[in-house]
Each structure stands twice: as C-alpha cells, then as structure tokens.
C-alpha cells in the first residue's frame, strides 16, 4: 500500500525520470548499433589501420568503467570544447561509445560464426563481396546475433543509471531526489527497481517475439 502511495505521490517525477531513461537508451542504442556495425566491419576489413583503430577502441572501452568514461567526457573533454555542456548529450556520447564497442564484438562474432563455405559458395556464383554480405551472410549472422544484441540492450538500459554521476535526471536520479524529500529509501528505491524491471521485461517479451518470427519457417541451421 505504501509503495502505491509513494508511486502516486511522486508520479510526475518518476515519469519524467522514466522518459529520460528511455530517451537515453533509445538514442544511445541506435548510435551503438551504427558504431557497432562500423567498427565490426573495421575489425573484419583486413586493412591494418582500420583493424587497429577498431581494436584499440574496443580495448579502451572494455578496459575502463562506464562511470569513469562518463566523468571523463563530461568533466574532462566537454569543457574543452564548449564551456557549459549538456549532461544529456555527454551521457548519450558515453553510453553510445560504451555500448558501440561491445556491439562491434557482437557483429564481428556473428559474421564470423557463419560458415566460410557460405561466402565461398556465394562468391563462386559471381556475387560481389557486398552482395554476399547482404544476401547470404548477414541474414544468417543476424539470427545468431540477436540474443547477444538484446542482452546488450538490457545492459545498456540498466547502465543509464550510472549517468546520475554527471547529473542527468533519469529514473535513478529521480529516486534519489524523492528520497531526499520523503526519507523513505526502502519504498522509493523499491518503486524505482520495479520501474526498471517492467521496462526490461517489456523489451524481453518483445525480443522473444522477434526471435520467434525470425526462426519461423525453418530451423536455424
């Protein structure tokens, strides 16, 4: 009952927090997918310099915590460019770069997981490298990648909470503000946790629906 009261009393605050979290997640994930494809292809390109760039990017991101990345971008780099930078934009940049690195590994691994004989068969028919990717390799690779991509989506949605450290008013920050007012951390953070849980459950349901659709018709090899 008390959970419900706290939820209702702070509805505007919670809702605006959720909206920020969703916006952060969607924008960052879109950017991350683009970065992931780009750097995934760099890794596979067999062009030394591109491979090197993509590998360094991956190792730097993987080797440092997201919180440090966010602090570094917001307090370290952003002031060098513009005097009063927007924490939301810095947050999106940090999160995109972070998720993009992991995504590039997912794309690389997915493409490599498709048997090389598929590439050879397609090329031997006279199809170009790009056509082969588009018509033969990617349709198979995406099926392999989907569980990992969804997993990364979920990780990234939860990681938005780390961005409270650069003063973004997303869901977790809203919780902190509410607690500062009502001194009820148990119930308030409980409500916040339920909100995340619902958000991610919706995504999970959606993704298992997509997965089922993709596997309809034939076995996955």
């Amino acid at each position, binding site marked *: 009952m008390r959970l419900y009261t706290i939820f209702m009393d702070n509805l505007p605050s919670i809702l605006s927090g959720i909206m920020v979290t969703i916006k952060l997640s969607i924008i960052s994930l879109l950017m991350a997918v683009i970065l992931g494809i780009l750097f995934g292809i760099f890794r596979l390109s067999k062009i030394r310099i591109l491979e090197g760039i993509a590998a360094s990017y991956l190792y730097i991101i993987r080797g440092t915590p997201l919180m440090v990345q966010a602090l570094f971008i917001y307090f370290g780099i952003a002031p060098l460019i513009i005097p009063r930078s927007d924490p939301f934009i810095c947050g999106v940049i940090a999160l995109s770069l972070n998720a993009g690195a992991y995504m590039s590994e997912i794309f690389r691994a997915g493409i490599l997981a498709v*048997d090389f*004989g*598929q590439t*050879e*068969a*397609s*090329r*031997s*028919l*006279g*199809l*170009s490298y790009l*056509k082969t990717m588009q*018509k*033969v390799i990617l*349709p*198979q690779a995406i*099926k392999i990648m989907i569980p990992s991509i969804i997993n990364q989506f979920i990780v990234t949605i939860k990681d938005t909470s780390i961005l409270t450290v650069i003063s973004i008013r997303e869901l977790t920050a809203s919780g902190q503000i509410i607690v500062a007012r009502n001194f009820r951390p148990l119930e308030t953070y409980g409500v916040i946790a339920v909100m995340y849980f619902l958000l991610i459950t919706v995504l999970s349901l959606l993704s298992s629906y997509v997965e089922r659709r993709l596997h309809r*018709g*034939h*076995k996955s*090899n």
Partner: protein
Amino acid sequence: MVIKAINIKKNFGDLEVLKDISLEIREGEVVCIIGPSGSGKSTLLRCLNRLEEIQAGNINILGKDLVKNKKIDNIRENIGMVFQHFNLFPHLTVLENMILAPVELKKMSKGDAIKKAEELLDQVGLFDKRDVYPDTLSGGQKQRAAIARALEMNPKIMLFDEPTSALDPEMVGEVLIVMKDLAAKGMTMVIVTHEMGFARDVADRVIFMDQGYILENDTPEKIFTNPACERCREFLNKVINCE
C-alpha cells in the same frame, strides 16, 4: 583452351602446396584430379576460380587473365563450383538458392530464372523439393541441388571439389549420375575425386598429383592400367584394393 595454368605456385605460409603446376584443359573436356590427401588437388581446383590466390605463375580462363583481373566476379559467373560440403544457403529454399545469383546479377528476370530453375530441378530429380529448405534434404539431394544451383548461372566450366566425399555411400551414385549426365552434354568439367570408378568411366583425362606436383597427366586407360610413375602405381594399388 578454356583453362590454361602456367607455372603456378601457391604457399600457405611456409608450406608450399602447389609447386610449379602447369595445366591445360580444352572445351568440353572432363578432367579428374586424383591423388593422396594433402597433394594439393583441392587447392589447385580452388585456384582456378581464385578462391585461393596464387603466389606465382599465370592462369587464363576462357581467354581472360584470372590472377590480376579486377572483374573477378564476371569471370566467376562462368565457372560453376560444387563443394564437398554443399554450401547451400540455409536461409533460402532450394529454388531461392538457385535464383539468387542470376536475379541479383540481372542475368535473368525472376520469372525466367524460376522457369530455368524448375527445368534444372527436374533434370536432377528434385522438382518436388523446390520450396523446401536445405536442412530437410538428404546429403545426396543437397549435392544435386548445389549442382543445379551452379548450373543455373549457365557456366561454361564446372569445378567439383570432392563432390561425393561427404556423402553416405548409398547416396554417392545419385550424384555421380547427375555428373555423368552433365559430362555427356559436353560440359567442361574439372573434378577432384576419390571415385576411381567414375574417373575411369567418365574422364577424358586423369591427373595424378602428389606433394604439390602433377606426376601424371594422361588418359584414364593409361593411368589405371599402366601408370608411368611408381608413386601413382602405389597410390592406385592402395585405393583400388580398398574398393
């Protein structure tokens, strides 16, 4: 000559797989390449459509230089290849497997491609399998579908890389029949195989390879009855006595 390879060399790192190979194949000729595993016969075949790059020498296919050609895809359109492990596209039906390349490369309209595909499927005895996915086919059916897919492009040359080696014994025959049929129609075929009976019956010429060299290059009668080199005699004794 539709295929002309001159002094080609191929290394995998320090390992020399092909050491100075020269080879000529005429139009309509059926050539079987035999030899022990590791002799370089599959590698040689794969060099003929540049799935492997060679380190030295020259290859000419249908009058065009293969090695440095920027338009490799145009040459490959004319060379069908059949693989040991079929390499059908599992996300496409048999028919879709066949029409993908000709339609994408705008060689045929989709309607024409389907019509031709159905004729070919009829020829290889798979007409009723046109709309199924490759997973549901047996090994022999997969390989027949793969041959049909290669033929759909109207190739002038067909390369076969151990087409029956991954098949259960009772399915070897159905694939060999399709290949025999193709040979009878005058297709230029280069076949890496362990099927000595097939080589003897169908080939115009048999090439024996060992350790990166061509040791014999002669008619099947000559090679199977009276091989010139000791190494070939030894190999044939082992293989044929096992059969």
